[in-house]
């Protein structure tokens, strides 16, 4: 009665063999190599997840495709927005690329809260990973995810006849711009996550700030046509700098790429600092 069936798997000391490596702790990396190593590990995980489940990439491509198709094509015909001689759909394509990348990043905090509830975050916090390295890793992982999304939108834009550059150096710049922008927006999201701690509230706040960030930027129209107060908003909105850089690099519009990069870099560093300092609240 109390005897266990013979088919039950039983582990015993003899059966654990070939564990020589599990007896030897790995040698810690030197300090300066730790951050890139953690960023690499987090980005790899993000890519692996995307490889196993691509649904999100496809469903999230629908909205930007509709923006370009409907809004872009219509406004190209009515020529209501001064674009400096560029067809409107070309003008807005970088804006939509930046928008779709931002949408991914701005909801990245939800993933952090989910990982917190599942215990994954706690487990990562008990590894030799400083909080700032964990946040940087997660932020770049969000950047990688956004980048994949941005590439999908670039392809859609190209199919719709937007005249994009194929200069590899400029495309490299596009890559850097999208990643930096997403590092900032995902850190903004993770900062809010550290404050509100609940998925529902973060969802609400995310929805509430996405539209102002989008319409309060130069994604759809130049800053010069905005009323004064909106111009002020737009000038402190990192999305404007992201769009400006993308416009300069992708379609060769007049842009301040160096300034854009500097602003995005500073914003990303500020975001990482803020999110790292609030990460402890998610560990409780």
């Amino acid at each position, binding site marked *: 009665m109390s005897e266990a069936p013979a088919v039950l798997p039983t*582990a015993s000391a003899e059966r654990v063999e070939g564990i020589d*490596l599990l007896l030897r702790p*790995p040698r810690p990396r030197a300090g300066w190599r730790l951050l890139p190593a953690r960023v690499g590990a987090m980005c790899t*995980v993000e890519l692996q997840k995307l490889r*196993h489940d691509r649904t999100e990439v496809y469903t999230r491509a629908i909205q930007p495709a509709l923006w370009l198709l409907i809004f872009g094509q219509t406004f190209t015909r009515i020529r209501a927005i001064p674009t400096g001689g560029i067809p409107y759909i070309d003008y807005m394509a970088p804006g939509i690329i930046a928008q779709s990348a931002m949408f991914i990043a701005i909801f990245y905090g939800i993933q952090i809260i989910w990982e917190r509830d*599942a215990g*994954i975050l706690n*487990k990562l916090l008990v*590894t*030799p990973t400083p909080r700032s390295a964990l946040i940087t890793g997660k932020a770049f992982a969000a950047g990688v995810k956004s980048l994949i999304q941005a590439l999908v939108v670039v392809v859609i834009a190209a199919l719709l006849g937007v005249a994009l550059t194929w200069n590899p150096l400029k495309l490299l710049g596009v890559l850097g711009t999208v990643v930096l922008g997403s590092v900032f927006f995902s850190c903004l999201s993770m900062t809010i996550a550290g404050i509100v701690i609940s998925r529902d509230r973060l969802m609400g706040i995310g929805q509430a700030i996405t539209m102002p960030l989008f319409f309060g930027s130069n994604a759809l129209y130049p800053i010069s046509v905005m009323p004064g107060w909106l111009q002020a908003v737009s000038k402190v909105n990192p999305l404007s700098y992201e769009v400006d850089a993308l416009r300069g690099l992708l379609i060769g519009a007049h842009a301040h790429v160096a300034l854009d990069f500097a602003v995005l870099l500073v914003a990303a560093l500020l975001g990482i600092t803020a999110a790292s300092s609030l990460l402890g609240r998610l560990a409780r």
Partner: protein
Amino acid sequence: MTRDIDAAEPEAVTCTGLAYFFGETKAVDGLDLSVHRGEVFGLLGPNGAGKTTAIRCITTLLPVPAGMVRVFGSDAAKDRMGVRRLLGYVPQQLSADAGLTGRENVTLFARVFDVSRRERAERVGQALAAVDLTDAADRLAKTYSGGMIRRLELAQALVSAPRLLILDEPTIGLDPIARTGVWEHINAVRAATGMTVLVTTHYMDEADQYCDRVGLMHRGRVRALGTPTELRQGLGERRRAEGAPASAPLPTLEDVFRDVAGSGLDDKSGDFRDVRSTRRTANRVG
């Protein structure tokens, strides 16, 4: 059971006067605890006894606001990174990433513990083999059963060759066969590696069967400490001295616990949040 605490050979874990309050609630209230090297130590107690908070202080997840916590001599408040390198941690929730394969889950932890690229694949393979997951390694973790996920988490913790394995309620919500399986793997790995194991549980029968020593925790402190047999025999002798018949069965650990905690155990055990999180874990295990 007293041991000389040699400075050259510090205990696996030492907590001295550890206190942690959540607002007015004294989760841990002056905890003194020593875990010897190489033993399986069970921290027992009902929901809300302070076990998880104590564990979180030891793992550096929570700060150490009062008292002292040392892991193999390293101060958990000052040398967090040093302490983390010594630890393998399995939290109460089923914490494997469902969207990754078993192998990817373990590889992530190999990477964040600085396992070199050269030996990464082999080390991950060994960790998966040690918990009998080699065949399922390339399946997504969302297809795993509750017991398999626990074993996968064990592999994640083992891949960095920790000296101290900390498991928070490792068998919560598992069916009896899966529970036995998880414990057998813990024991097999301990036997093979000699690592120290600190485990919390509220299943007294498991602690009786698998732990070398146990500490019974109630309202933030360890109220009784010893091997399960010592504690049970101690209570049995006392009961006989108080007039219980010699033929009475040896008390169980649960009896010892009721004796230590006294009355008020049933109504004070665990607040709403504890119960909810326990249920959630149980639900995920299915």
